[in-house]
């Protein structure tokens, strides 16, 4: 039953012309074929297929979509091409191994893969441990029921965020991207943009407020 539901989700996806099912060999990473943003439900369906059924074709599609993006992310963070490609491999192997723990009610596929790539990056480029909270921690204080109900579904949240990012001013969007893609404290960002630190902080704060508001608004 679950399998059937999965396939249904995958058929509904908005990407059929650029992503077809079939053998692994056909997968190409040509950027022009993967430039468009995918439907988050489709991506979540692929990740579930990997987690539940060890589905190699689904994995190949995830790789085709995320591999070149993760590589770009790592290179923005200062990795050279060879290291970036090695870390893409390691990240995607981690995706394969951990796919079962992916929970679509908690996060979107892109968020889940972003956190894996981010942690690999910290591990490799900064040689630091990366503490993470554990959702099964007996010490974890759960959200109140009404808060949990009010939480926007992960896939929906991801869609709203991408819409909201487009409404940021160019300056704001650039700062947010610098904060995520370049391992820099806000002070360094201030240096490089030749803006006073206070301005960087207040612009980032405005951008964050804007995004948060966009998330909470009713559709």
């Amino acid at each position, binding site marked *: 039953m679950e399998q059937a539901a999965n396939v249904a989700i995958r058929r509904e996806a908005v990407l059929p012309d650029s992503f077809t099912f079939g053998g692994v060999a056909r997968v190409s990473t040509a950027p022009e074929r993967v430039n468009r943003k995918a439907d988050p439900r489709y991506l979540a369906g692929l990740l579930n297929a990997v987690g539940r059924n060890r589905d190699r074709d689904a994995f190949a599609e995830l790789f085709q979509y995320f591999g070149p993006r993760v590589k770009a992310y790592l290179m923005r963070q200062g990795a050279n091409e060879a290291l970036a490609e090695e870390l893409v491999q390691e990240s995607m192997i981690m995706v394969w191994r951990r796919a079962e723990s992916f929970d679509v009610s908690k996060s979107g596929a892109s968020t889940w893969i972003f956190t894996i790539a981010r942690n690999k*990056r910290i591990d490799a480029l900064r040689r630091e441990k990366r503490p993470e909270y554990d959702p099964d921690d007996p010490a974890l204080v759960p959200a109140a029921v009404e808060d949990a109900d009010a939480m926007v579904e992960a896939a929906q*949240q991801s869609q709203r965020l991408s819409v909201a990012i487009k409404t940021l001013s160019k300056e704001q969007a650039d700062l947010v991207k610098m904060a995520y893609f370049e391992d820099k404290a806000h002070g360094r960002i201030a240096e490089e943009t030749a803006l006073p630190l206070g301005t960087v902080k207040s612009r980032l704060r405005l951008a964050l407020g804007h995004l948060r508001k966009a998330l909470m608004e009713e559709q």
Partner: protein
Amino acid sequence: MPAHHLSDEILMAYAAGSLPEPLSLVVVSHVTLCPACRAQMETYEALGGSLIEEIAPVGLPDSALSDIFARLDDEASGPGEADPWGRAPARTPADHRSVDGSVPRPLRDYLGQDLSALNWRSVIRGVEEAEIALDGGEVRTRLMRIQPGVAVPKHTHGGEEVTLVLTGGYSDAGGHYARGDVQVADPTVDHQPVADPGEPCLCLVISDAPLKLTGPIGRWLNPFITY
């Protein structure tokens, strides 16, 4: 639900992966105890997910995918990890059984199971501390245990200090701090915390070395310093 939280800026920096390890440890320990900041932090991780989808992709060699499959196949036939095609080992309930729940799991991972086995040293009567081994550069990471009702002598900080309450509580001029609360003290704050009566107050404390205001914590917390 804690009353004193982390700033959005720090939660975002954690999500982006740019915080130093000691501050990350404070963040994950706080979000374990604070559903509001946890949700906020996850929103910032979702922002990262959204941004990584919008990044201009950089092509991978055609062999990249088959290399991954080959690597998994190799590992499957050779020694090493049990079943690379299989699933990641899940934490079993037994891993959690011996944990008393007072210390968030990520912090517990640094401490081991038995707090009394740590290398506690007395600071003053009723106040003890134990260093946490962590490569934090100039940042000190430690647990502090203050006996009920004990007042920590009035002091100013040489550097930035971030305190997360794990058990018990304390009060100072800034207010009352209980389990899950975070206090950020900058060097100009002259404070004298007094532990609540009842159980001992256990805190995770990270501090920047005196006069190291441009160190990793100050960089994040002090909005007035240019560097």
